[in-house]
């Protein structure tokens, strides 16, 4: 659906993105991840035809963004970082305006606006002035704006930034509901957001892609297939820690004081052995937790590795 080849963009002398290559298939939900200033917004703006790249090629639904920008724009719903809403318009009027602007057939404008309001749960506020709405609602109006023309592709630039946790959860819920109806590209620097809604992750840092994989694939690859296990016991913690080192499959033991941290190979039998060992030692097992490498750790590993080059 979206194909990007050798994309570069410079702001003056400063390169914002360098030689980006990736593609998004129809129906995929892709998380576009990176620290602030990595080039996420720039990439998205180029895909939407908002700005031109310095070099490279972008194709959306088979159309070149620069040769037929109107065809591309007709197929994209875009929510920029700041929702592009007029504070002195009513929600319903605004959505009608956007539907007209996006070229929704005249007789379908009303139903399109009503549909977008229903999807984003704006029913209660549809006759209110946008300027008087809370930030969360304004963000939803922004999302409704992107949805109103029922585009094949949704590009959402940090859709939950600045919202409170409840509003964030609502927007994420909404994005999950949209899965399957649209191809979605979602940028963020908030990791739980990606874990909550995306199937595929592209991590970008300093204008370059540092990883592109499915969520589970990424996690497996980065941890080298291993697990870390934390064990908490009531008594004799030091003795247990020492004896655990002799269990087969345990690679490293660290006694942190509050709990014991183990690094093991990925197999489940090792974990079973560890559990049995602690129980048999009679130390009073109260907690045993298996963690695969979290996205957060992957993210930090990837983006800081790049910085130390």
């Amino acid at each position, binding site marked *: 659906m979206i194909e990007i080849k050798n994309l570069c963009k410079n702001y003056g002398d400063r390169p914002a993105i360098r030689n980006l290559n990736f593609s998004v298939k129809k129906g995929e939900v892709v998380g576009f991840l990176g620290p602030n200033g990595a080039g996420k917004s720039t990439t998205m703006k180029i895909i939407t*035809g908002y700005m*031109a790249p310095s070099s490279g090629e972008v194709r959306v639904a088979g159309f070149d963004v620069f040769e037929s920008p109107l065809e591309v724009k*007709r197929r994209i719903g875009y929510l*920029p970082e700041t929702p592009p809403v*007029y504070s*002195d*318009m009513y929600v319903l009027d605004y959505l009608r*305006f956007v539907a007209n*602007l996006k070229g929704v057939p*005249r007789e379908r404008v009303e139903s399109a606006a009503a549909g977008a309001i229903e999807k984003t749960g704006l029913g209660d506020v549809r006759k209110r002035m946008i300027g008087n709405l809370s930030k969360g609602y304004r963000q939803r109006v922004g999302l409704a704006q992107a949805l109103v023309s029922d585009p094949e592709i949704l590009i959402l630039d940090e859709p939950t930034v600045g919202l409170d946790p409840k509003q964030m959860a609502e927007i994420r819920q909404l994005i999950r509901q949209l899965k399957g109806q649209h191809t979605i590209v979602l940028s963020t620097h908030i990791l739980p957001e990606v874990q909550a809604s995306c199937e595929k992750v592209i991590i970008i840092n300093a204008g370059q892609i540092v990883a592109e994989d499915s969520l589970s694939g990424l996690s497996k690859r980065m941890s080298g297939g291993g697990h870390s296990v934390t064990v908490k016991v009531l008594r004799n913690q030091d003795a247990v820690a020492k004896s655990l080192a002799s269990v087969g499959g345990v690679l490293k033991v660290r006694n942190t004081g509050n709990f014991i941290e183990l690094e093991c190979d990925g197999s489940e039998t090792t974990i079973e052995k560890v559990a049995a060992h602690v129980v048999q030692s009679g130390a009073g097992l109260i907690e045993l937790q298996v963690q695969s490498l979290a996205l957060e750790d992957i993210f930090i590993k990837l983006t800081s590795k790049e910085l130390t080059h």
Partner: protein
Amino acid sequence: MRAVLTLAGKDLRNLLTSPMFYVISGLCSVLWTYAYLRAFLSFAERTRAFMQPGMEGGMNLQREVFLMHISQINLLYVFVVPALTMRLLAEEKRFRTFDLLLTSPITSTHIALGKFLAGMGAVTALTAISFIYPLATRGVAEFPMAPLLAAYAGVFLVSGAYVAVGLFASSLTESVMLSVILGLIFNISLWFISQGMAGDASPMVAAVLEYLSLGQHFLGFIMGSVKLASVVFLCSVIGLFVFLTQRVVESARWR
């Protein structure tokens, strides 16, 4: 076409419902009423004096009253139109709603034209208010309509030039304040382009500058004559500034 009308409709409604428009049209009517009434009453006074036995022929309402009224409309428009057009693009940029326009399936030309039509609509509404004065005069005096309509055609075209200039000023900046000031300076320059060159300019330069000055063309209209050269000139000014606006809007994609 639909995109242009959608944009123009939204912005026109926005302009006509803004407090700004009411303040401006209110203040303008106060000024117009004061000056028009004074000119008209003194005209009536003098006409009565002329009507004494032995004095032949009436005085010309067009020249004595309407000319003053219309030059005053023009004078106010130099200042007022930039205030009406200041928000058209500057505010879109400032509040990031420009992103919506630039990612919608419309071209920069649609944006420039839509915005121009909206500004034109608002200014024409103001012009319509000013037209009430001569129209009301028809209730108490007889006068030929044609020269008055010619004069108003001039007002329409000149205000179009101010709108185009104001729109261009608005496209250059994110600051509404700066947009007004720029618009004002452009308007005044267009008006006074032929002044201040007297003496040290060659006759040919002076003639060219005079042709480029709004004042000369506008004067023709007020006197009741519609010259093709003037119509073409004013339309080109409008076209030029709408075109420049379109270029500035388009440039947002390349920066």
